[in-house]
Structures are given as C-alpha cells and as structure tokens.
C-alpha cells in the first residue's frame, strides 16, 4: 500500500510514537473570553495535547449538543470576528511555533471568508487540519498545496462504498464519530465500530481519532487502544462552565481532569 502522507499526517504519526496514542482536546474559542482561551491553549499543550481542535463560535451549531451550544453562546456574548480569530491564532502560533493546530468551524464561517482564502490564511498560522462538521464528502474543496488538510468524517451510518471513497481522500486524520447524534452525548463505546476501524486501517495509515462522548479514563483508554486516539470537548467545556467565577480554579480543574483521563 503506497500512500503519500501530508506533513500534518506525518506530524501526527510522529507524535503518536511518544505515547502510543494521540490526544486532541477541543476548545471553543472565546469561552468564556479570549484571554482564558489563550491560557487554556498553553495548559492543554503542557498537558500533552498533540493538536488542539480550536472551535470557532457559530450561531447555529446544529451538530453540537447542549454543552458546546452553551460554550458558543458564551463566546458570542462578546464581540467576535474573523479578524479576532486570526489575531488569536497569530499569537498562539508565535508562542508555539512547532505545534500544529486544527480549526473547527461550521461551513458558513468558511463561506463568508471564501473557502480558499480562509484555508490559505489558516495554513500560514500553523493550522494543519480543518474540521467542518456540516460539509460532507461531496461538498469538500479539492486538496491543494499550502492548505491545511481537510479532515474527513466516518460515522456509524457510513456504508462500505462511501467509507472507501472517504478514506481514499482522507488526509491529516480521520474523525471517527463514535455514535449517532451530537457532541457530548452519553454512552461512548467503539465496540460496534471495530470492523469499520479494521477496514479503514487496511486502506490507510492516516490516524483515526474517535470523538463524540469521550469523558472518562475508560473511554480514553478504549479509544487509545481501538483507534489511534481521541478528541475530547464537552467535558472540557463542562469544567469551564462550572468554574466561570474563578478562572484559576478552572485551570487547575482542567489540569487535574485531564491527568485523570489520559491513559
């Protein structure tokens, strides 16, 4: 099996060698404010994040559950603009020049900027991959040099034909949606997806990251062994939400929670 790997895939595969799995926290930017986001990014990198999925707030997050909806609502309760996002990314990419970030945004934020304009700009800001939950395979832009990898999704409803087509264009990592539903849902298990994972593995070396519903050490352990790692989001924003009145306790809690969860 010969496959050209993108620099971002390479980066992830190398990082995976250290611990044997990849850890990708999700952070909705601006929750509860930009300063906290910056501090939390630092903290997540210190806690061992391999990339961070930075979520750009959107008014209509139809793939997100209640926790991440509230996170976006807090983000949008103060001024938000694309320029502020770029300024933020400039700052953190200067601070962490060897780290590759990922950006999650609903399609309209890309559309408003112009898909390619946005991708070009993000690429210059250490963004290795972009995750757009409301853009399925057919609507994705064609890959181009000097752009972040467009991350593809595989879900429990993806049938074999489609799976093959998705995996054949997968770059960066594959986002394995662990369950039918939205982010933050309970009942995480990869058991029903074991075969899917095997099928993907036969076709590609692009790492498989499980997401949706990961909130405990047991979940993380399962994802680290059955897949190549995991994305954890709602649990992080629950802790942010529970500690809005005290940011230093918030950060302490985040550190401890991640210590408890990481295999």
């Amino acid at each position, binding site marked *: 099996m010969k496959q050209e790997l993108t620099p971002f895939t390479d980066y992830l595969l190398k990082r995976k060698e250290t611990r044997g799995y990849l850890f990708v926290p999700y952070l909705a930017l601006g929750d509860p404010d930009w300063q906290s986001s910056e501090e939390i990014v630092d903290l997540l990198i210190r806690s061992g994040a391999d990339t961070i999925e930075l979520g750009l707030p959107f008014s209509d997050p*139809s*793939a997100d559950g209640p926790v991440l909806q509230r996170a976006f609502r807090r983000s949008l309760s103060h001024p938000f*603009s694309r320029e502020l996002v770029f300024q933020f990314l400039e700052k953190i990419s200067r601070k962490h020049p060897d780290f590759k970030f990922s950006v999650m945004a609903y399609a309209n934020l890309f*559309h408003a900027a112009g898909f390619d304009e946005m991708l070009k700009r993000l690429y210059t800001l250490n963004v290795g991959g972009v995750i757009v939950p409301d*853009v*399925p395979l057919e609507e994705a832009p064609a890959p181009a040099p000097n752009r972040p990898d467009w991350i593809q999704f595989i879900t429990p409803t*993806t049938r074999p034909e489609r799976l093959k087509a998705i995996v054949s264009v997968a770059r960066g990592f594959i986002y394995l949606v662990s369950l*039918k539903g939205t982010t933050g849902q309970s009942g995480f298990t990869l058991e029903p997806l074991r075969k899917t994972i095997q099928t993907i593995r036969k076709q590609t070396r692009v790492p498989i990251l499980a997401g949706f519903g990961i909130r405990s050490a047991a979940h993380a352990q399962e994802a680290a062994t059955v897949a190549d790692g995991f994305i954890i989001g709602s649990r992080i924003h629950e802790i942010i939400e529970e500690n809005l009145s005290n940011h230093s306790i918030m950060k302490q809690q985040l550190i401890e929670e991640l210590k408890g969860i990481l295999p």
Partner: protein
Amino acid sequence: MAKREGYFGEFGGRFVSELLIPALDKLWEQYKKAIKDPSYKKEYQALLHDYAGRPTHLYFAANLSAIHKARIYLKREDTLHTGSHKINNTLGQALLARRMGKKRVIAETGAGQHGVATATAAAVLGLKAHVYMGEEDLRRQALNGFRMRLLGSTVEGVGGPTGTLRDAVNEALRDWSRTVDDTHYIVGSAIGPHPFPRIVRDFQSVIGKEARKQILAKEKRLPDMVSACVGGGSNAIGMFSGFVKDNVVLLGAEAGGRGDNPGQHSSSLSRGVPGILQGARTYLLQDSSGIVSPVHSVSAGLDYPGVGPEHAYLKSIGRAEYVSISDEQALEAFRVLSEVEGIIPALESSHAVAAAFDWINKARKKGLKDPLVIINLSGRGDKDVAEVQRILDGAGNEDH
C-alpha cells in the same frame, strides 16, 4: 456550469453532517420510486382530496378588486384542513415515511402550522410525532402548541425565551442525527439539504398547478402576477412553479419587520447575501464573519434568517422579484382583507396581500389596466387573532 444534483444553479447542496448523508440518499431514492408508483400516487391524491379538501377554490375578490382597480383572485389554501398549505407537504412526506418503514416523524415549526399539519398527518397515518418549536413562537402561537398535543404529538420548546424557527430547525437536525434509523424528519418548508427543497416544492406545486388551470378557466388568460409570502418559501415555490415558464411576474413577499437594521426583519433575499445554513447554500442574514443574524417578524412563520435555495436561484437569474413588507403593512392588509372580504388571513399571508397591493399600484401607474393577479392565501388567521389583539391593544410589537 454543469448541473449538479441537489443544486439550483449555485444554491442548495447538502451541507449537513456526514451522519445524515445515507438517510438523505435513501430519501431521494425512495421519493423517486414513490412518485412513479401508482398506489402511492393514488393514496396521496385521495388524502389531498377527501381529507385535506383539495382542490382549493380560486376566489374572485370583488370588493378588493374594486378598491384597487384590478382583478384580484385569492388562492384559498386557508380553507384546507388544519388551516394552511402545510398539509400538502406533510401528507406527502408522512406517506413517504411510512413507506420507508419509519415509525416516528419529527418536525420544526414556526407559526405552529407545520407542526399541526405534521401532527395531523401522523395521527391519520399512525405515526408518532415530535415537534420542535421556538419558545418565543410557543408563546405567540400557544393555541397551536396545544392543538399538536390534542392530536397526539409531543411538543418541545427550544432556543430559550427568544427561540424561533431557526432554533427549531437546529434542534430537529440534532434529533434526526440521533434517531435517523427509525425517524423521518418532515422538513416544513422548501429549505434544508437536498432533497428536501425539491420534495417540498413538488408537494406544494399542486397550488400553482390548480391556480393556473383555474385562472385560465375563469379569465381565459394567465395572470399578470402571482404573489406569495416567503418564510422558508414553500407556499411561494408551490405557487411559482405553476407559472415559472409563463410570462407572469412572480412576486415573493418577505418579512420587513420593524425596519432595515439587523435583527429587525427577516428579508433574507432582499437584504441578505449568500451563505450556508441548515443544509443549504442560500441567501442569509448574517454579519461579515458569517454569524447568522437574529431576525424578527410579526409573523412567526416568516421569522427565519435563511430561505429555500430555489428562491435564491430564481432571484439570481432575475426570474422572481422579492420585496420586503413591514409588520405594519402586513397588519394593515390583515385588517383590510378581514373587513372587506370577510376573510381573516394568516399574518404570513397578509404579507403577500400587502405586496400585491403595492405591485398593483405601481403597475397601474406604469399604465397596466386592470391588472390580473393571484394572491396565494397560504393560511387562515385564527392562530393570529390573539397576538394581533395583543398588538392592537397597545402591548406593542416587541420581542420578548
């Protein structure tokens, strides 16, 4: 540009989670089969005729016509069972759901008319229904909330105190991504990912088909103009589809609300720019970063920041005209139609009435004599009476 499936020109598409793609594929496949199946067609036609009350009349509004020096016809979708055009679509989709072996249907609703029509179709076809409705809309249209429960459905308020139609669509999409195996999402307007805009248009096209036949029978000629209100755009696209190939002006009336500022109206086509929301690329009210704007209309059914992609297309090629009608104009048309013709229209439909008055006025000034127009009366105003009373009593037309 090559014609892409699921697109109207550059508008439409399937901008949803990968999770939902197989269900959309299956729906499109099953729909194409169903509409060729004589037993499906027969059952749908029988329901439309015997249960919903089709065909609806094309009524010559003599008093209005005299006032406006025009020949004004009203397409009486307001006389349908459940009180609006929404039943044309829900019966079609509920039958489709049953055919696909789905046990449960969900719906979003703004004014509650689509929710009631879904609950009704589910009741008669033996399906379970769950309806999402914005909390602000549940307040404005409390009776419709209760009506759905009477019909055996469950209703869930969403989006917090300011929740409206867009919140209901988001929540229905979330539900569907969890329950897609046994649930069909009966999208209530010509919006959402392909194939919904196409399916809903087809089910509503009966409006335009009938109206065209009826006007030819009565007037021996086509109208100069047809008007309809545009929320998501289903009653309008249903009416327009009957006349799109003719030399007839297609006039869509959007909600102009309280003024031009963001948050004060929901005129996506007249004042928005293209974007991507809830499954489709279409005209949207949004800021320069792509955050979708809050919207307002006195009528809950038009209170939506997007619009069906086929309307975006008709606008982009200049085939249809879209105008913005203020709350005040709509309320005035509501009053006039009630007093002059004895017909209390839905606040949504009142926008189409007001737009037609404006158009007739301008057309006559340009020298068109006795303009012949059809206004689509998409629904009746019973649901709005309490809210209009509240506004007229001076409570004001504010958001809560």
